[in-house]
């Protein structure tokens, strides 16, 4: 595990195993002075209250947290199931690129159980890990100026759903009617880090 400084109120933690990021996040939540822990693709940003903690005390707590996270069995989690109409603008092109039929592409995308690795880009936009390596394609060379809300898409190692209409360069496979971002709900994001997700064709 590498711990790097991030100003005087945070540290950037890079566990040896990227799969440990979410377990580590759960484990540091109770450490004194830790205000929040923000996961990303390989790292965890741990923000702390400098009146209570320092980079060194957080680091020491992280060592213990990592050991605890390793020994804890993975918790059984409930999956959110999203019904998807597979009619995305890039469906044919992606099928051609990975060398299978559209039907097979849909079957493969719906077969996996994904995990929200982190959110970013825009409020409620979740990066889901667990995409079959053979389905990993590059994002568009030139992003679309507007991607409709609910678009189910893939790019690189991730699949995701656009919570609101926005510009975007991911490859569009389909669309869901699920309400991914609702400010009247707590939390407003349907997909938060750690949430398991399945797609179902409709």
């Amino acid at each position, binding site marked *: 595990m590498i711990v*790097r400084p991030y100003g005087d109120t945070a540290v950037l933690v890079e566990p040896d195993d990227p799969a440990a990021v979410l377990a580590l996040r759960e484990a540091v939540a109770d450490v004194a002075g830790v205000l929040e822990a923000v996961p990303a693709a390989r790292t965890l940003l741990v923000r702390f209250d400098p009146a209570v903690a320092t980079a060194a005390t957080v680091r020491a707590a992280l060592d213990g947290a990592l050991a605890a996270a390793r020994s804890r069995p993975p918790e059984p989690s409930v999956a959110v199931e999203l019904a998807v109409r597979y009619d995305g603008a890039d469906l044919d092109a992606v099928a051609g690129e990975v060398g299978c039929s559209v039907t097979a592409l849909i079957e493969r995308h719906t077969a996996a159980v994904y995990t929200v690795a982190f959110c970013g880009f825009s409020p409620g936009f979740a990066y889901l890990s667990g995409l079959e390596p053979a389905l990993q394609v590059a994002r568009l060379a030139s992003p679309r100026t507007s991607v409709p809300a609910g678009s189910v898409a893939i790019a690189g190692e991730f699949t995701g759903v656009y919570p609101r209409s926005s510009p975007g360069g991911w490859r569009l496979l389909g669309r869901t009617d699920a309400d991914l971002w609702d400010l009247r709900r707590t939390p*407003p994001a349907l997909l938060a880090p750690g949430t398991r997700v399945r797609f179902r064709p409709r």
Partner: protein
Amino acid sequence: MIEVLAPGPLTALQDGGRAGLAALGVPRSGAFDRAALRLANRLVGNPPDAPALEATFGGLDLLVHDAATVAITGAPCPGLDHAAPLSLPAGTRVRLGVPPRGLRSYLAVRGGFAVEHVLGSASTDTLSGLGPAALRAGDRLAIGPEPSGRVSSASGGGARFDGVLRVIAGPRDDWFEPGALGLLASAAWTVRADSNRIGVRLDGPPLARTRAGELPSEATLPGALQVPPDGRPIVLGPDATLTGGYPVVAVVRDSDLDLAGQLRPGDVVRFRVAAQAIR
């Protein structure tokens, strides 16, 4: 009630922001100069992070319909008492001129602005669109109930404009040539015109990288010095996106972030770089 006659280049409601929701992709937002916000609120007896108006480069023109007590802090605007509580009779016109130095002025009103909160904050997030829209001419702003705090006459402290930002090296200084941190510390950096609440963009000698490409996305914080491929650093502001693949060469100390919020195009800024070992 206070009526907006003209908002100037950009005036928006800002408070303490939405800290703690970064894992859901929600930026912190809130006042760029947090010390100025807190001072303005303290002067009128409000809770420190109550919503106030953040005026960018003056130009704000208000009509105070009901008697009110206000305080203006941050970048000082000509013609107005700075950092002191002002009792204004009904019908007073308040015009913020262009500040001779600094960029953002804060106007707090006793009772605060009664606006809808989104995810616990009344702040306008200029990137993600959360919170109220930026002010427009004709907007009518309701004032909240009398707070229990007292109006304070002690002005105490003003905004700093000395142009020096203290930073801590890392987390990705190892993506740059060995001389990059020295160059960051020795060069005079000029604030670019395309700076805003998302980032303060700087011009200067490019910081050369030893690695090409991008990092897998990492979480960011306001104050991070993100370096895109052109080598010119951007100091991330309160509305910046929360994940990015550009390496962060250093991060501004939390207490100096207020000063970054007062940098205006053409200003020269210098960095004082410290290293920090974590053991």
